[in-house]
């Protein structure tokens, strides 16, 4: 259990700037999700906190003490890698026990046995304990590598897209499981994902990174409802926010260059005429792809809608998000 303070964190790899002046305070017990496309600096942030890479500038403090001089082992963090993190020459049991046998912890064997069994139960891999790590499916491997983080009781859990290689059902189960573990342990989590549902359901805080810069940090709701820029707005929301020229629906506020429409900002049945191009029934939601003049808009309709391609309907925006020429929120 610990709080983390990143101040002015900068890291470059050759000519590429991975992180630029990132400052961030993660309160004790928070579940922070980092969002951003590939190359935004999410993984770099985790690696710097873990101590696998050294920052070019800036400081990392855990529990108020700078850890820059500490080795990864001394920092007492656990990390789940996106891939390749199981030791292929060991069995599942030995993999799970590996951190507990380290010189730092060095638990007695009977305690290790109990802990490993307990974690294996939670992750539904108890029946595979004596398999070699290489004999597992992708999903099982990933569960073991999550398990290797969970057997310990580190100050911070770092997770780099831990659920990305799992199938939908398992992902949903583990999402709940991780959330439960977080609530139970009260530990601090730093979690990288592309998945919006993971971000919205698990996070207490969301940080959005863009080309190595932290552009917004707040609760998932703040990030969704009150994004600082068009970039942040397009990180969250299914279907994605529709960005159109500001004057698409008539007069716009001064300085606005773009209008951003989430499904809840589009009122169907009044306003300007539009044509239905495609209807996607996803079960719990129905997506409408509309054309309005030269513009395309994606929004949601009632799940039981009878609308069909080619039909006409009217739409109007309500409380949309406005962005200026450089994408910043007005």
């Amino acid at each position, binding site marked *: 259990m610990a709080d983390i303070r990143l101040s002015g964190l900068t890291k470059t790899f050759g000519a590429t700037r991975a992180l630029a002046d990132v400052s961030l305070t993660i309160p004790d017990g928070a579940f922070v999700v980092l969002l951003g496309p590939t190359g935004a600096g999410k993984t770099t942030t985790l690696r710097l906190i*873990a101590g*696998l890479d050294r920052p070019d500038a800036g400081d990392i403090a855990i529990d108020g003490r700078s850890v820059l001089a500490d*080795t*990864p082992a001394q920092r007492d963090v656990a*990390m789940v*890698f996106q891939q390749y*993190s199981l030791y292929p020459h060991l069995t599942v049991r030995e993999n799970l026990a*590996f951190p507990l046998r380290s010189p730092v912890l060095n638990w007695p064997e009977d305690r290790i046995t109990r802990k490993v069994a307990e974690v294996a139960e939670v992750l539904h891999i108890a029946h595979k304990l004596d398999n070699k790590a290489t004999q597992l499916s992708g999903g099982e491997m990933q569960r073991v*590598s999550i398990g290797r983080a969970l057997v*310990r009781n580190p100050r911070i859990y770092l997770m780099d897209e831990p659920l990305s290689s799992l199938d939908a059902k398992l992902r949903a189960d583990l999402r709940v499981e991780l959330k439960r573990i977080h609530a139970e342990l009260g530990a601090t989590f730093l979690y990288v994902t592309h998945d919006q549902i993971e971000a919205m359901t698990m996070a207490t805080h969301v940080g959005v990174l863009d080309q190595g810069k932290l552009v917004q940090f707040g609760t998932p709701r703040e990030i969704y409802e009150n994004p600082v820029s068009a970039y942040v707005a397009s990180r969250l929301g299914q279907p994605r926010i529709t960005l159109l020229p500001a004057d698409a629906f008539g007069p716009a506020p001064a300085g606005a260059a773009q209008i951003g429409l989430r499904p809840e900002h589009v009122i169907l049945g009044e306003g300007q005429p539009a044509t239905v191009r495609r209807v996607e029934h996803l079960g719990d939601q129905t997506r409408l792809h509309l054309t309005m003049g030269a513009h395309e808009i994606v929004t949601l309709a009632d799940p039981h809608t009878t609308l069909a391609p080619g039909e006409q309907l009217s739409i109007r925006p309500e409380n949309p998000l406005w962005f200026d020429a450089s994408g910043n929120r007005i």
Partner: protein
Amino acid sequence: MTAYSVTEPTGRSKLVAGLLVTLYAVITLLPLLWIISTGFKSGPDSISYPPKVVFEPSLEGYVNLFTTRTRVAAEEFQNLPPPETWYDAIVRESGMVIAGPSRFGERFLNSVIIGFGSTFLSIFLGTLAAYAFSRFKVPLKDDLLFFILSTRMMPPIAVAIPIYLMYRELGLSDTHLGMILLYTAVNISLAVWLLKGFIDEIPREYEEAALIDGYTRFQAFRKVVLPQAATGIASTAIFCLIFAWNEYAFAVLLTSGTAQTAPPFIPTIIGVGGQDWPAVAAGATIFLLPVMIFTILLRKHLLRGITFGAVRK
């Protein structure tokens, strides 16, 4: 309709491949069979023409290999007590008596010490160097690697004279240490390059995971990298051992007594009691055994090692 598989070979192509492999095996194994069978022939059988394929096996060659013998005067020979051992008896048949053990045992032991010693040292140093080159930022890394490789760009014997003079100066001539160092120096470039390739194939994430799991870098190296590099280490060790074991030129030049290895010793058998081909063949056969056993023990690794880079990704 028959379903044809693209990947599964047909019966006929399997047969052709089998025949070719067998033919190749026969051609390469024939000299070996010749040596092994000659070792069990009697002196006259070994030089008879046409060569005898079926012969009465004899251990004379092996006895002669391990002993020195003298001829004694006829009357003295008559008065000798009956032979005490089976090898005594074999020597008596040719009208001689055993004078003492030959030096083959010592030379063979020298080969074992020097061959395995230099292999161990090459692998030990090579693994550490390869790991460093693979994982750390070493200044002038590419130049250093090229320099290491360049030591193999000419035949080692080309520098025989400087090494001979240097060894005489340093007192390393005809010592075990000297030969171990020499073979290690020749093998280390091969070891570094081969092992670097193997270690490069091991993703860094494993070590990073171990570092976070509470291990130091050296412990991560020992517990995570070494077991996964075992295949590469085994195949590299075989290559190093085969070179050190078979090396002849330097052994002739630099050793004569205490540290002489088996390769320069075996030919000297010819001069001692006439052209004793069975003894030479027996020496060659015994000489083959350690490398054969070592290779068979590590065979599984060797096969995997050769295909390692190809099947990994």
